[in-house]
C-alpha cells in the first residue's frame, strides 16, 4: 500500500489528465486534492510530538536516573533514617503530584505521567536503599521482583503504558537473573508475557505486545535449555536436541497462524508482522540444524528413555497446530503450509529419526517442499507480502548457509571428500534452481506475478563460486562411493529429483535454453563427482574444473545476450576476469621476479581490459539493437 503522501503526489500528476479526459472537472479536482491534503495535515498533527513534550520526557528520564544515583551514592553525611524518611516522602510526593494532575485537575497529563514514573522509580530506589542500609545481599532478585510487582499493580490500575514497560522490563530482568545466577527455570514466567500482552493491548501498546511475544519465545528456550542442562548422558542429550529442533516446525506454524489471525486486528497488525516473520524463521530451524551428516544415537528418538518430556512437548505442539488449522479455516486463511508442516512432522515422528540417512533425506525433502510452498502458495494473495519477501530471502539464505556449511565441513574435517562435498552443493543449487523454474511455470500458467531471476541469479552465483573454489589445487581424494551411506543416499536423492524435475520442466517449459545450459553444469558436475577418487592427479581435477569454470562463464555470457541482461553480462565478465587473473598469478607468480611480474601483468592487463571492454560494449550494442528491433 502506498503512503498517503505519495498518493497525493500521484493525484496531482494524474488529475489534470482526468480533467482532459472529461472524467472530473476542475472543482472536483480541487475538492479531491483538498480532501487528501486535510487528511495528511490531520495525521501529521496526531503523530507529531511537540518539543515541550520531548523536553519533559527527557526531564522525566533524568529525574528517575537522578533518584537512583542519589540514593546509590550512600551519602556519608546523611544518616540512614533520614534517607528512609526522604524516600517515603518522595514516593508520597510524586504519587500525590501525579494524582493531582491526572485525577483532580485532569490536565497536564504528561507531567502527571512523568511523576507517576518517578514514583515507581522512587519505590525501586527505596528497595535498593533498604538493601543498602541493612546490607542485604541474599537473593537480590527478590528486590527486583518486589519492584516489578509494585510497578505492575500501579500501572494496571492507572492504565499507564510507560509503567507497563518498566514493570515488564523488571520482570524480564528478574527472570533472566534467576535463570543465570540461580539456575531457576522459572516455569511460571510465561504468565508475565501473557498478562502483559493483554494489558498492553488494553492500552493500545502494540510495541509492548511485540516485546511480550519475544519474552514468551525466550521462555520457551529457557525451559527447554534448562531441561537439556539437566541431562548428563550424551546420547539422550543429542536425541533431546533433535526432538527440540523438530519442535520448531509445529511451533513456527502455531506462531505463523497467530500472526495471520492477529493481522486483522487494528492494534496488533504491526506486532502481527513481527510474530509472523518469527514463526517462519522458527520453522526453518530443523532444516538448518538437522540437514547435515550428524551422528545420532539410535533408530528411534521420540518417546525413548530420557526423551519423554520433549516427545510430549512435540505432541502438544502438534495438537496446537491442529487447533491453529481449525482457526485458520474459520478465518478463511490458507492452511496448505500448516497441513504440510503437520503431516511432515508426524511422518518424521513415525520414521526412525535416529537413522542418519533417513533424517538427512527427510530434512532435504522437507526443505525443498517448504521452499517450494513458500514460493508458490502465496503468489496470488496480495496480503502475503511478508511470505513473498521471505520466499526469496530464505531461498537465498539457505543457498548461502548450505554452501558455507558444506565448504566448511569439506575444508575442515573431510578434506579427502572435498570435491564430493562441493559438487554436492552444486547439485543442491541445481535442485533449488529447478524448484524455482517449476514455480515459474505454475505462476505463468496461473498469471500470478513472480520474479524468477532473483533466485536464478543466486543459484548461478553459488555454482560459479563453488566451481571457482574447485579450480585450485586439491589434495588426494577418496572415491565418493566410499563416503558414508547417508551422504551417498543424499547425492542419489538430489540427482534423481533433479532428473525428474528436468523431465517435468522439459515437457512444460517454453524456455528450454535455460534447462539446457543448467543441464550442462549439472551433468558435468555429476560426472566429475564419480570421476574423482584415489589415483587421480590434482592436475586432472584442476584442468577439468577450469574448463568447467570457462564453460559456466560462457553459459552466463551467452544467456545474458539471450535475455538482454546487462547486469548478468557484467557479472559474467567480472567472473571471467577473476578466473583469468587467478590462473595468471597461479602460473606466473613463481616464474617471474616481483617487478617483472607486475610490469608484464600491467601490460597484459591493459591490453586484455581493452579487448574485453571492446567485446562487452559490442555485446551491449547487440542487446540494444535486439531490444530496438523487438520494439
Amino acid at each position, binding site marked *: 500500500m502506498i503512503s498517503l503522501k505519495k498518493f497525493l503526489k500521484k493525484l496531482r500528476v494524474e488529475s489534470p489528465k482526468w480533467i482532459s479526459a472529461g472524467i472530473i472537472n476542475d472543482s472536483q479536482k480541487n475538492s479531491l486534492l483538498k480532501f487528501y491534503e486535510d487528511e495528511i495535515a490531520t495525521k501529521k498533527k496526531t503523530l507529531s510530538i511537540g518539543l515541550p513534550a520531548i523536553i519533559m520526557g527527557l526531564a522525566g528520564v533524568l529525574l528517575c536516573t537522578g533518584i537512583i544515583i542519589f540514593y*546509590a551514592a550512600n551519602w*556519608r553525611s546523611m544518616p540512614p533514617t533520614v534517607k528512609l524518611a526522604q524516600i517515603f516522602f518522595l514516593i508520597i510526593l510524586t504519587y500525590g503530584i501525579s494524582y493531582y494532575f491526572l485525577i483532580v485537575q485532569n490536565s497536564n497529563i504528561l507531567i502527571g505521567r512523568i511523576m507517576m514514573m518517578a514514583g515507581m522509580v522512587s*519505590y525501586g530506589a527505596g528497595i535498593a536503599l533498604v538493601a543498602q542500609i541493612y*546490607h542485604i*545481599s*541474599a537473593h537480590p532478585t527478590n528486590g527486583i521482583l*518486589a519492584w516489578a510487582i*509494585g510497578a505492575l*499493580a500501579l500501572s494496571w490500575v492507572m492504565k499507564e503504558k510507560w509503567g507497563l514497560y518498566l514493570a515488564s522490563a523488571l520482570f524480564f530482568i528478574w527472570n533472566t537473573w534467576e535463570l543465570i545466577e540461580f539456575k531457576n527455570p522459572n516455569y511460571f514466567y510465561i504468565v508475565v508475557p501473557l498478562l502483559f500482552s493483554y494489558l498492553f493491548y488494553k492500552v493500545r501498546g502494540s510495541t509492548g505486545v511485540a516485546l511480550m511475544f519475544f519474552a514468551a519465545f525466550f521462555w520457551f528456550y529457557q525451559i527447554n535449555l534448562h531441561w537439556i542442562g539437566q541431562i548428563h548422558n550424551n546420547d539422550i542429550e543429542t536425541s533431546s536436541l533433535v526432538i527440540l529442533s523438530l519442535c520448531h516446525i509445529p511451533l513456527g506454524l502455531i506462531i505463523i497462524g497467530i500472526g495471520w489471525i492477529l493481522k486483522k486486528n487494528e492494534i496488533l497488525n504491526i506486532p502481527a508482522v513481527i510474530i509472523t516473520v518469527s514463526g517462519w524463521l522458527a520453522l526453518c530451524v530443523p532444516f538448518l540444524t538437522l540437514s547435515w551428516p550428524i551422528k545420532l544415537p539410535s533408530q528411534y528418538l521420540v518417546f525413548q528413555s530420557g526423551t519423554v518430556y520433549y516427545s510430549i512437548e512435540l505432541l502438544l505442539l502438534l495438537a496446537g497446530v491442529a487447533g491453529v488449522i481449525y482457526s485458520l479455516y474459520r478465518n478463511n486463511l490458507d492452511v496448505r503450509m500448516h497441513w504440510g508442516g503437520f503431516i511432515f512432522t508426524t511422518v518424521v515422528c513415525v520414521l526412525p529419526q535416529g537413522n542418519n540417512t533417513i533424517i538427512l533425506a527427510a530434512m532435504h525433502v522437507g526443505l525443498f517442499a517448504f521452499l517450494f510452498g513458500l514460493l508458490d502458495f502465496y503468489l496470488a494473495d496480495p496480503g502475503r507480502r511478508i511470505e513473498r519477501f521471505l520466499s526469496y530471502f530464505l531461498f537465498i539464505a539457505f543457498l548461502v548457509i548450505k554452501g558455507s556449511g558444506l565448504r566448511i565441513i569439506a575444508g575442515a574435517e573431510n578434506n579427502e571428500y572435498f570435491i564430493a562435498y562441493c559438487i554436492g552443493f552444486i547439485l543442491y543449487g541445481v535442485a533449488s534452481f529447478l524448484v524455482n523454474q517449476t514455480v515459474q511455470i505454475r505462476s505463468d500458467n496461473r498469471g500470478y506475478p513472480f520474479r524468477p531471476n532473483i533466485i536464478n541469479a543466486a543459484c548461478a552465483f553459488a555454482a560459479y563460486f563453488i566451481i571457482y573454489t574447485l579450480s585450485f589445487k586439491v589434495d588426494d581424494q577418496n572415491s565418493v562411493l566410499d563416503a558414508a551411506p547417508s551422504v551417498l543416499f543424499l547425492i542419489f536423492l538430489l540427482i534423481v529429483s533433479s532428473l525428474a524435475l528436468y523431465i517435468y520442466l522439459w515437457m512444460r517449459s517454453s524456455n528450454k535454453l535455460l534447462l539446457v545450459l543448467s543441464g550442462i553444469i549439472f551433468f558435468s558436475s555429476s560426472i566429475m563427482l564419480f570421476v574423482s577418487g584415489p589415483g587421480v592427479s590434482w592436475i586432472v581435477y584442476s584442468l577439468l574444473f577450469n574448463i568447467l569454470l570457462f564453460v559456466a562463464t560462457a553459459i552466463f555470457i551467452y544467456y545474458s545476450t539471450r535475455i538482454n541482461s546487462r547486469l548478468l553480462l557484467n557479472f559474467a565478465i567480472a567472473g571471467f576476469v577473476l578466473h583469468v587473473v587467478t590462473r595468471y598469478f597461479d602460473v606466473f607468480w613463481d616464474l617471474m621476479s616481483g617487478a617483472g611480474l607486475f610490469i608484464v601483468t600491467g601490460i597484459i592487463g591493459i591490453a586484455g581490459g581493452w579487448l574485453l571492454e571492446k567485446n562487452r560494449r559490442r555485446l551491449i550494442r547487440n542487446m540494444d539493437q535486439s531490444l530496438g528491433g523487438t520494439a
Partner: protein
Amino acid sequence: MQIAVLGVMIGNRVCLLDTGVKVLLKCEPVDPRSLISGDYVILNYEISSLAKDIYTGPNLNNLKPNDTVYVALEKLINKKYWVAKSFSTDYDTLRKSYPVIMRGTIKDTYSTIRIHYGIENYFVPQNQGLKIEQKMDDISVEISVSDTGESALSRLFISDREVTFY
C-alpha cells in the same frame, strides 16, 4: 501498597537485628567492588568455605549449587569468633545439638563446599571502600541470627574497633 512493602522489608530487618543471637565472625580479605547501586565491600568469611567432612546430612554427593543448607555455629572457649561445627540440609537434626544455626545457599561444590549467607556485601558510603580494603586482614563482623537461620549484618569491626560512617 508500595509503602507497605518497604515497611515490611524494614520491619523484618529491624526485628532480626534486635532479637537475633549476636555472632562474631572472622573475615578473609577480598577486594572491595563498586557498582552503580552503591559502593560495597565483599566480605568472605571463614564459614564461607566448609570442609566436606563436617557435613552431617544425607548424601553429600547430591549437594549442588543453589541448594539450601544449614550451618551450625559454635563459639569456642576462650575464643572470640564463632566457627562452623557442622552443616546439613536437615535443619531439625542440627537444631537438636546446636543453638545457633545459619541458613545459606551452596555456590559450588568442589574440594570444599562454598556457601553464601546473604551477608557478603557491606555497603559503605561512596569512596569509603578503600579504607576497609587497606585493613582487610583484620576485619570481623557481628551478625544477628534468627531462630529460623536467617542472618543479618549488624556491625563491622576493624582491629576490634567498630566502623561507623554516620
